[in-house]
């Protein structure tokens, strides 16, 4: 079953075509890596799928809902973690969980259970009453991810979730992603780290607004006759016409 289906999705800003007729499917429970150089159009495509941006043309369905008519329904079934850290820094850890969980309709009892469980998993039980601003970046990112999946969405969209995070924390972050995938949550993730690309079930690589390659990391490496995703990425991305 596909949770995301995109068909010739296009987004133009004036003369500039940020996303150029991309078509792909994402299966339920998959970890889908969405790669591309800066300016390749990843974030724009992701924002369209989340209902934050209106496409110029093309079709797409997310969680079974049409992206033109069903954006508000889509929003009930997805989680989103943006490039910019976006929990409330002047709210405490538990208050952020309560706010976002509550918005998705979790009851007070569910919220309490979820909060306890989440803080236990993150080993942040003693930080329950800390203001989010006071946490180190890595902790913030892990918390933001956990909040994004607090309502067990069908899909979670992660826009460069590990930017600026140290390798150990990145590893822990990916463990959280695997746990979410085991719970049946589809993960749609953009990244610049090619080692992370190896962790994905399937990977698409965007160049100048188009998807130039889409397959499992193993198949891509075979196809491009490379030993690592890094080489695959490089051989595709260097063709890019767009600068930063």
């Amino acid at each position, binding site marked *: 079953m596909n949770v995301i289906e995109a068909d010739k999705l296009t987004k133009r*800003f004036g003369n500039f075509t940020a996303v150029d007729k991309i078509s792909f499917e994402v299966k339920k429970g998959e970890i889908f890596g969405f790669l591309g150089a800066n300016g390749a159009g990843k974030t724009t495509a992701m924002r369209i799928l989340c209902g934050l941006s209106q496409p110029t043309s093309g079709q797409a369905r997310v969680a079974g809902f049409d992206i033109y008519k069903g954006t508000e329904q889509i*929003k009930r079934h997805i989680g989103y973690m*943006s490039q910019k850290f976006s929990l409330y820094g*002047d709210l405490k850890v538990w208050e952020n969980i309560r706010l976002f969980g*509550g918005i998705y309709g979790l009851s007070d009892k569910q919220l309490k259970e979820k909060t306890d469980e989440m803080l236990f998993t993150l080993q942040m039980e003693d930080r329950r009453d800390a203001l989010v601003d006071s946490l180190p970046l890595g902790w913030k990112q892990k918390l933001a991810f956990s909040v994004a999946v607090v309502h067990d969405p069908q899909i979670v969209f992660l826009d460069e979730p590990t930017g600026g995070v140290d390798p150990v924390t990145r590893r822990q972050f990916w463990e959280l992603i695997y746990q979410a995938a085991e719970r049946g949550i589809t993960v749609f993730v953009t990244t610049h780290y090619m080692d992370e690309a190896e962790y994905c079930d399937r990977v698409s690589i965007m160049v100048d607004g188009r998807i130039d390659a889409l397959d499992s990391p193993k198949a891509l490496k075979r196809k491009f006759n490379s030993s690592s995703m890094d080489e695959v990425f490089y051989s595709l991305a260097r063709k890019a016409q767009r600068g930063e």
Partner: protein
Amino acid sequence: MNNIRILRLLLEKEFKQIGRDSLMPRLIVLMPVIQLIILPFAANFEMKNVNLAIVDNDRSVVTAQLTDKIISSGYFRLTALESSYENALPFMENNNADIIFEYPLAMEKDLGQEGSVTVSITANAVNGTKAGLGSSYLASIIRQYNLEQTLSTATAPVQIKSTHLFNHHLDYKAYMVPGIMAFLLTLIGGFLSALNIVAEKEKGTIEQINVTPVPKSIFLLSKLVPFWIIGLILLAFGMLTAWVIYGFVPVGNILTIYLFAAIYLIALTGLGLAVSAISTTQQQAMFTMFFCAMIFALLSGLFTPISSMPQWAQTITLFNPIRYFVEVMRMIYLKGSYLTDIADHLLIVCGFAVFFNAIAILGYRKKRG
């Protein structure tokens, strides 16, 4: 049902954020007190301390008497007593004299023989208000003096006795304080709300909200309610300050003031939200609000009477929400007007409330481009 819970959660969030802000709670308490203590005195139209240079060419008993009378009126400060106009002029050039008052040569003698003399008043019109008011004060003192002189000989001329209704002592503060309160609520409702949503845009937190199923009207309501409540508390603070410091209490009903203020705050918060919905940075929002506030303040009748503005400016004031609130506050505070007297004002402000909030809802987009 679900929306009510979402609104409650968002309000919890807003109040916690406002409470944790290091500046905001203090500002909210300090603003009414400071504005109400300082502004009524500063924005006083009674002209005191008009600097006066007197040129006395006569140096007689009559001129001495008249000079005494002028100084003892309390409006003037004698900065120079010269013997010629040429000597007095530098005082005006150096801003040490606002008015030069000149007695003619042989004034006493002419007065006795011919019954009349001409004195001259030269006013520095760089500060037009000071010049105009100073000259008219001076003229009225001379008129008074004339009267006293003629009273003994001629028949008593008609005297005008004027009474100032509703503000018997023409206390300027009684007039300013209610108006300043109206302005205060405008600042709270308009500015704070304008900055609030834009701050979320700058931090990026608004995107996290936009990607959730929170309806935008609920989100906007969660921004409106806190400033509405703060505004109403502030109004109580303001009225308390006016009573403690000046002893002013509204002649009319406090509930009428509250009813009007409640709707007015919805209108102004709506304006603030509309501005922040279409701005992308706090700088833009601040500048737009400042632009509005300047025009609103000067065309509100707070400082200058609307009836003395040119017709086109009077027409503009009809589109100024503050104008109505200032009028209503003065009507209720000074005249004790009833709800029926301010019904028109109330209706118009309801219109503003609907208009501004509609713009806010239309202007705020969860989805862009």
